[in-house]
């Protein structure tokens, strides 16, 4: 599934990485626990989280995650966007709850990590 499709399904706003929305995403992982995210080995993964702080971006940087969906109408800061840009990440902001977001993506065929 392309990032572009994820954004459409979630009616999400692309706040960073507009040029890379044609990239393919193979699976999704939802968590607000960063050490959980740091155990993953999957490539082309979208991280779905309700936490919007710099540590989410740093965690994604270390875990080689380059697409993050922020749910529950959480907004990212300019500092977060700056570091995300340096690392070629695409950031999406969406208004749905975590449950709703994951449900929509799962239904649309986005695979779980396990």
């Amino acid at each position: 599934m392309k990032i572009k499709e994820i954004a459409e399904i979630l009616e999400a706003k692309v706040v960073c990485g507009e040029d890379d929305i044609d990239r393919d995403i193979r699976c999704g992982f939802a968590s607000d626990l960063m050490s959980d995210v740091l155990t993953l080995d999957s490539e082309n993964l979208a991280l779905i989280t309700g936490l919007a702080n710099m540590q989410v971006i740093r965690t994604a940087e270390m875990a080689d995650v380059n697409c993050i969906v922020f749910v529950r109408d959480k907004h990212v800061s300019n500092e977060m966007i700056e570091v995300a840009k340096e690392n070629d990440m695409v950031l999406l902001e969406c208004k749905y709850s975590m449950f709703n977001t994951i449900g929509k993506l799962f239904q649309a065929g986005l695979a779980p990590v396990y």
Partner: protein
Amino acid sequence: MEFNYEVEGGNFAKAGYAASSVKKVLKELNVDPKIIKRVVVALYEGEVNVVAHAYRGNIKVDIDTERIFIEIKDEGPGIPDINLAMQVGYSTASAMVREMGFGAGMGLPNMKRNADTLDISSSVGKGTVVELTTYLVK
């Protein structure tokens, strides 16, 4: 090649600075991306532990052609029972640390999984030293 970083306890805005710059260095040295990920994930967990649990710390990263050696040394409360701290799920993280997305009790086990060797020594009331080695040639 040696690099040194200072880490401020409690400052989550800056946590990850060392891991991020080490990642850039390793990329420039054309280290295998899989090894880079293992090294920076372990370093980042260690860096966050200093921010989350200690008062201040120093990170030394020594890179040669055979291995990457990292020493994370902090002044802090220390770890009374290292075996217990190594268990998945064990955490004494504060509410503030949990709000930042940490405190699952997975950092030390993550570090062990990602490094070739992990050595921890700690004295209660003084601080903790974590040493990680990753070999570049198997």
